[in-house]
């Protein structure tokens, strides 16, 4: 029946149909089916499933995700002025249509019940809610009183016009103290890339590669730009399917998808790489001339036997990996956190890159990703050494004012650094954040920011291989709370305080941004008028500012043999693994992510300690037992999860839990492994050696069931998932005959 001739009887039918009736009257849309199949006579309201509810029509707005630094493009579905769902922006060169779980959960950090609704200032030691005006007055007064040259900014990864304004502000302050801090970073890798290839983030051609060897680079989970790599990984796996090999102390999401997964003794990844190089040179006649003599000499020392002795990786495995790399050329060798975060992290990363050179991957599967045309917009990627620098500066009184945003160092920086005490020496600390967290709790003024779905901004992803784009961060809905302000606006206001008159013209960040985009080169605007260009950009959610061009210049650098000593008191090594979900802990206050089980262990709402069965046997612990993990800096307690995805000498505890002050969903849940890290930094870059802490474990006698999903670790003989060999796959679906 059609809607425009509703007689009384039909009308009553509609009313009987509940959802349909209501929806129809509210004129959303006409139902395609009024009653069930032969329901010409009948009204079958109780049997009207969801499908007979008439969906409203949502409006999709493009924006950019701020949940993690890789800044994917998103579309937000808006109805009645509320954003309900986010999906990947197909236009985006970063993520295509896809998104990770953290991006989806952005909704819950936006609507989070624990968001700060009003500014807080410290009155007599306690933080008390005040109006924005009042709080801002305090900031102005303090800034006037302090030496602007001693103003420091600690931020997470920043890019786009926020970065531009921040630079301008620091310039006006006459200060260079900008600490870009990310607990989960690739900064060792970046510096090695810079040194050896001349580019911090080159482009990895998964589509071309036939094999990938990853030393702890969890590119499907937490490494650089997970969603982008997942997309590439899909290509890598289809057609002429590539081989993925992973070497890491604890199985990450990437490791779980590997064809061949093997753990090396923590820190010895570099040695393994050299061992592989050795096999390549001796067995596979790789072109040795690519490497300087010193390196060749070092490689020759690491024959298979030596490597096995040092790394604990069986000789057959070394050969197997080498064969795969050779037989499935071209290949990519990459390294990540668990290889980098050691005192010899730089060595490990370099050794991995040496393999790339030796395999002739550079230029083939590792290409230049070019640079942002406007360098000022480029992404400032974070490092953990930044936190050390901050601590040092604060300690020696080089900071009078400190602004902190997008980072929670008090939670993520190891306690041996003593950041809390050192920050206490900074007279005036301002937190720009949406949530009360451990760091904000220490500051004197907390300015609540708009959520990323309410704020304006632009971003330039650190890793954008194909083309350089500026991602538009556009509000998906009106701000929920009046007393909150956008990051850009705050920066502008601060600039105005500093009397940087060229910014006085802008009433707010929006107008600044608009103006900034207008002033982009005509080539970028593709001849559109300013207004059209603006709307076009908002519609697309991104602005293409030129293709990735440039080339890599290969430089090999000297390697010095590392030395590894055992520690009798602390026989094991702690692996504070990053889990895609809670990230470094900033997303721990999102119920969806807490309830979504960890990909590997399937544990939710908690922390745990992963042990290898042999280790568990040695210590006589079984699944669910609570063990104490003790380093020279302190100890934590967690329940044991036992599986064969972790090195026997390693106890892996995921980071992200153990918050003391981070809202109802995160507080007092699990433990924070970063707290017990012992001193140690990478010799070259000064990055915190987070994966190098030696620990010992002991039983506490406590035990209870793990909070985990799933009743069985295996399929118990049912054919739920069966595995076919890659050869079969290549035969049936490889090459031409793709499904």
């Amino acid at each position, binding site marked *: 029946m059609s809607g425009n001739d509703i007689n009384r009887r039909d009308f009553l039918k509609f009313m009987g149909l509940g959802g349909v009736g209501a929806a129809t009257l509210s004129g959303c849309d006409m139902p395609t089916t009024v009653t*069930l*199949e*032969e329901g010409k006579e*009948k009204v079958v309201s109780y*049997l009207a499933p969801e499908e007979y509810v008439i969906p409203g029509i949502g409006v999709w707005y493009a924006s950019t995700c701020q949940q993690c630094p890789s800044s994917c493009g998103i579309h937000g579905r808006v109805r009645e002025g509320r954003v309900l769902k986010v999906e990947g922006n197909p236009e985006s060169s970063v993520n295509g249509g896809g998104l990770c779980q953290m991006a989806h959960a952005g909704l819950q950090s936006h609507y989070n019940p624990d968001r700060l609704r009003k500014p807080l200032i410290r009155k007599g030691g306690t933080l008390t809610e005040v109006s924005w005006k009042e709080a801002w007055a305090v900031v102005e007064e303090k800034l006037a009183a302090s030496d602007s040259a001693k103003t420091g900014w600690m931020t997470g990864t920043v890019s786009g016009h926020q970065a531009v304004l921040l630079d301008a502000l620091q310039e006006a302050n006459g200060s260079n103290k900008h600490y870009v801090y990310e607990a989960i970073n690739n900064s060792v890798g970046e510096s090695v890339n810079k040194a050896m290839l001349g580019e911090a983030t080159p482009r990895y051609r998964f589509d071309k590669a036939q094999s990938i060897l990853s030393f702890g680079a969890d590119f499907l989970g937490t490494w650089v730009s997970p969603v982008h790599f997942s997309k590439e990984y899909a290509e890598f796996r289809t057609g002429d399917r590539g081989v993925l090999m992973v070497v890491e102390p604890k199985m990450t999401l990437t490791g779980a998808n590997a064809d061949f997964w093997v753990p090396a003794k923590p820190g010895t990844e570099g040695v393994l790489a050299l061992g592989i190089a050795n096999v390549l040179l001796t067995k596979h006649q790789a072109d040795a001339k690519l490497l300087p003599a010193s390196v060749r000499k070092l490689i020759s020392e690491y024959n298979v036997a030596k490597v096995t002795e040092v790394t604990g990786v069986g000789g057959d495995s070394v050969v197997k990996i080498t064969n795969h790399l050779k037989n499935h050329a071209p290949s990519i060798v990459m390294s990540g956190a668990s290889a980098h975060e050691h005192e010899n992290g730089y060595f490990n990363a370099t050794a991995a890159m040496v393999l790339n050179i030796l395999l002739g991957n550079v230029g083939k599967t590792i290409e230049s990703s070019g640079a942002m045309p406007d360098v000022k917009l480029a992404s400032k990627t974070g490092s953990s050494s930044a936190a050390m620098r901050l601590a040092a500066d604060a300690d020696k009184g080089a900071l009078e004012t400190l602004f902190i945003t997008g980072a929670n160092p008090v939670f993520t920086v190891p306690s041996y650094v003593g950041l809390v005490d050192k920050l206490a020496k900074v007279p005036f600390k301002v937190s720009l954040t949406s949530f009360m967290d451990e760091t904000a709790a220490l500051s004197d003024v907390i300015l609540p920011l708009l959520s990323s779905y309410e704020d304006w901004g632009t971003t330039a992803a650190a890793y954008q291989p194909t083309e350089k784009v500026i991602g538009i961060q556009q509000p998906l809905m009106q701000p929920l709370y009046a007393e909150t302000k956008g990051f850009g606006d705050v920066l502008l206001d601060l600039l105005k305080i500093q009397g940087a008159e060229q910014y006085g013209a802008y009433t707010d960040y929006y107008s600044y941004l608009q103006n900034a985009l207008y002033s982009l080169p005509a080539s970028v605007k593709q001849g559109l008028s300013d207004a059209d260009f603006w709307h076009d950009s908002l519609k697309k959610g991104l602005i293409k500012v030129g293709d990735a061009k440039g080339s890599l210049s290969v430089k090999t650098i000297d390697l010095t043999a590392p030395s590894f000593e055992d520690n009798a008191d602390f026989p094991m090594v702690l692996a504070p693994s990053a889990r895609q979900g809670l990230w470094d802990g900033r997303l721990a206050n999102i119920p969806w992510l807490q309830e979504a089980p960890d990909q590997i262990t399937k544990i939710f709402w908690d922390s745990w300690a992963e042990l290898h069965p042999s280790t568990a046997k040695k210590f006589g612990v079984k699944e669910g037992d609570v063990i104490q993990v003790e380093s020279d800096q302190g100890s934590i307690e967690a329940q044991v999860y036992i599986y064969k995805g972790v090195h026997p000498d390693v106890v892996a505890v995921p980071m992200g839990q153990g918050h003391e002050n981070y809202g109802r969903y995160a507080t007092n849940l699990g433990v924070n492994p970063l707290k017990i890290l012992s001193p140690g930094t990478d010799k070259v870059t000064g990055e915190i050696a987070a994966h190098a802490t030696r620990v010992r474990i002991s039983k506490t006698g406590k035990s209870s069931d793990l909070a985990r999903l799933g009743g069985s670790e295996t399929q118990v003989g049912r054919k739920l998932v069966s595995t076919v060999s890659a050869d079969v796959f290549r035969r049936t679906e490889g090459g031409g005959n793709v499904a």
Partner: protein
Amino acid sequence: MKRYYIMGLFSNFEEAFAAISDIRDHKVPGVSVDDVTLKSPIEHPEIEEVLGDRGSPVPKFGLYGAIFGMIAGFFFLASGQATFLVQPSGGKAVIPLPSNIVLAYEMLILFGVLSTVIGFAIAARLMTRRHPLYSEKVSLDQIGVMLELDEKNVNLVKDLFKQHQVLEIREEVAS
């Protein structure tokens, strides 16, 4: 001519039995055994040997009730299902025989039982006023033999009862 109800109470079944046998043997002219009603505390199937088989309609009620229940039951379900096509298919037919047979079976028994009970209530004249000559002794341990007869025969029957050590004789004018 007036008609009388007369009832003799006997202390045991044998006496009553003898009395009825005599009546059947026409010891009393003009009194037929068909006028006799036996009232007893327990069931006496053997009495039918003398009273003659008086039959009972109850089984018929049971049979017809059952048949009705089965057929009506099945079609009740079937027609219900046939107008309710939306109901879960689960790969099964709209009118699935297995379940309908099971349910029809239950209906068969339900209606069988109900109509039997109704039949009983009707045939046994339940829910009617008790006879004026009803004696509580009957529900205890005595046997009552009751006749409906003409005035002239009353005394003859009384004599007959007395022959059989009747404990008590009651009479009542039939209205």
